[in-house]
């Protein structure tokens, strides 16, 4: 870059293009997408045994089973809040080390708000539905998957993709949400290994997708100059 003043009427197109390139470079340097996905993958995978051992299952003589996923309620709210705090701190520290400010706060706040919403919805459901059994249509079950921990991870990632203007993350999140919404994380997958495994397999798939995303973004991240 030269230090000469650009004469008025020079090449504004080039000047504007340079400004955009510099802004794009800053946004790339502020990103720590791989770390966010890694934290979320670890939280998801560690959550599987909590759901497995925290689930109370009561099978009736007619072959049907009632279950309560207490492990999800006890594990996920604090785990997600800690995860968003850890991601925010990591972003700020990495950006500061590179000599930049961070723009992660809206993501962390969205994640925390969605966590509170999920907790409220699940507590309300746990208190109401045992005494008022209802068979929901599939559209309600999709909404339920969206406000479950695996769904809200994706919703918050959409916010991160927006604030980072990160098209790759947006595409990844679209794929992740498609997987999280298609998998029956709220009624269990039909497996031959019992009801606990029925719930564990979708969580394992979500965790692995996040882990693969973390590896992919780590491989393509911009190294500081």
């Amino acid at each position, binding site marked *: *870059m*030269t*230090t*000469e*003043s*650009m004469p*008025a*009427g020079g090449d*504004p*197109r080039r*000047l*504007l293009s*340079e*400004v955009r390139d*510099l*802004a794009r*470079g*800053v*946004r790339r*340097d*502020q990103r720590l997408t791989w770390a966010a996905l890694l934290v979320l993958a670890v939280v998801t995978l560690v959550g599987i045994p909590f759901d497995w051992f925290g689930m109370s299952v009561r099978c009736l003589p007619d072959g049907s089973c009632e279950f309560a996923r207490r492990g999800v309620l006890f594990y996920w709210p604090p785990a997600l809040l800690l995860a968003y705090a850890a991601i925010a701190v990591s972003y700020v520290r990495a*950006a500061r080390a*590179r*000599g*930049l*400010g*961070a*723009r992660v706060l809206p993501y962390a706040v969205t994640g925390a708000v969605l966590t509170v919403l999920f907790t409220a919805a699940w507590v309300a459901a746990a208190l109401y539905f045992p005494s008022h059994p209802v068979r929901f249509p599939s559209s309600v079950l999709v909404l339920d998957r969206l406000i479950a921990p695996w769904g809200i991870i994706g919703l918050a990632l959409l916010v991160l993709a927006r604030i980072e203007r990160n098209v790759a993350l947006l595409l990844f999140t679209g794929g992740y949400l498609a997987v999280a919404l298609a998998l029956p994380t709220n009624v269990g997958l039909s497996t031959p290994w019992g009801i606990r495994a029925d719930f564990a397999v979708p969580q394992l798939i979500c965790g692995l997708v996040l882990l693969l995303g973390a590896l992919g973004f780590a491989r393509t991240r911009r190294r500081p*100059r």
Partner: protein
Amino acid sequence: MTTEAAGPDPAGHPANGLDEVVHQRVRLGILAIVHEARRAEFGYLRTELDLTAGNLSKHLSVLEAAGLIKVEKGYEGRRGRTWITLTPAGSAALAEEIKRLKLLIGKVETSGHP
């Protein structure tokens, strides 16, 4: 009484509204980086703009004197660090410059001149 020939209104040309402090490649680059980053450190600016420390300092002084940036010096451990943030006037000046540049590009394209 003289009659002047009607020509293009010079006051209406977008180039006339350009601020000489901002309309300079390095200073515009500094403003663009700091705006996007919320705040930027001296070393980051020097690397990204490929400048010497002295050269960057001169440009920062011009921007600071114009009230467009705020320079804060501090320490992290034993290492001295200088952080630059935009003032509200700096944000407004950057937005105005970008608006003028887009107007200029539009003007060049509609007039058909390169």
